[in-house]
């Protein structure tokens, strides 16, 4: 439910994978194929001369080496920053506001509320705790957690329930969605909801529900 950039992840992994694949294949080809080895023996000095030429032309008056080292350092620094941003983009998207009307950041008031001044905010914790308290009362659930995430600009609830062993998932789904509908009635918002019926370590070590 987070805003992990999935397409970007796959693109970068593909690019890095292709680069590693190419380097590995080249190394193996150098070892195994004599034609490649002899080609490299001719080509490598040419590339070296090319680099030396560039270094000579980019060395400023009075400097002993090229300014390209500084440029290379700047490029590497930029790459490191981009990679750090990439890491930071994983798993983002939790929000603390369930709904807001009026005030900064809230949606505009509805026309049928008489134009009353002021703003109303329902924090995520209010919705989460209401739902969680209702879920934890159920004997067929070993645990539950509720969190709020930003989905394309609107807050959405992620309800994670851990049913005890042997509890049929369809009854859990129906009853949790009934609780969600009750929350809809209380808050007045019909938010996107994800019900994730999972099995965790905690479920595995608890006894199955014997009476249903």
């Amino acid at each position, binding site marked *: *439910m987070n805003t*992990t950039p*999935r397409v970007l*992840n*796959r693109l*970068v*992994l*593909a690019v*890095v*994978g292709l680069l*590693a*694949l*190419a380097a*590995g*294949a*080249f*190394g*193996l080809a*150098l*070892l195994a194929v004599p034609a490649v080895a002899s080609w490299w023996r001719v080509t*490598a000095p040419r*590339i*070296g001369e090319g680099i030396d030429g560039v270094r000579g032309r980019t060395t400023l008056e009075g400097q*002993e*080496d090229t300014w390209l*080292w*500084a440029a290379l*350092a700047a490029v*590497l620094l930029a*790459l*490191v920053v981009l*990679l750090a941003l990439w*890491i930071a983009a*994983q*798993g983002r998207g939790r929000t603390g506001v369930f709904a807001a009307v009026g005030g900064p950041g809230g949606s505009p008031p509805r026309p049928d509320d008489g134009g009353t001044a002021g703003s109303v905010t329902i924090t995520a914790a209010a919705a989460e705790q209401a739902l969680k308290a209702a879920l934890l009362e159920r004997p067929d659930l070993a645990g539950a957690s509720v969190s709020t995430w930003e*989905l*394309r600009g*609107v807050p*959405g609830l992620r*309800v994670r329930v851990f*049913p005890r*062993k*042997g*509890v049929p*998932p*369809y009854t859990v*789904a*129906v009853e949790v*969605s009934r609780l*969600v*509908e009750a929350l809809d009635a209380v808050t007045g*918002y*019909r*938010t*996107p*909801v*994800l*019900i*994730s019926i999972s*099995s965790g370590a905690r479920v595995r070590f608890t006894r199955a529900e014997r009476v249903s």
Partner: protein
Amino acid sequence: MSADPLDRSTPASTARLVRRELHSSRAIASVGTAVLLIVALLVLLFEALLKAVGDEPFLVDLEAAAAWVGTLPGAAPASLLGAGSALLLVLGALLLLLAVLPGRRPRYTIPNERAAVVVDAEVVASSLARRARVAAGVAPEQVLVTVGRTTVTVQVRPTSGVPVDADAVRVAVADDLRRSSVVPEPRITVIVAESGVIGQ
């Protein structure tokens, strides 16, 4: 679209939620790759800075390294070069597969009017095992249910001397699956073991 402005849940957003939950986001592979790359780039960055200010190299002499690459495969021991290249090849293939494969998680979705519902395969298996156990009249330890993407395998070890009705087990399991209406619908295989166990 709904006329109610407070209705923020659409079928499209629900479908998107389900799709994202059923597939891996590749976040762990991405973070691992990024950390490795950052470490390598920081070493290179440090060496480039040392070069820029005209100091001695610290760990890797970039010029010597480039010259060494130019003389390959001459001076390097073949075994080391081969092993390193093979490692890079395997790593690259692994990353490429991670990028290309769909990365389905062992989960199913249950159609629901209000919410997006996803179920771990383990929960489905546990529910099926319970139904199969009741239908076969055996103890929980005598039933093993394996849930794959398109198949459900129920293995029953009957209690010695008490025959197990495989068809009854199949019907019970099929009924449970139908009620969950998990998508995609799996195929059911019931295997009753030849030898029984001493029952409880």
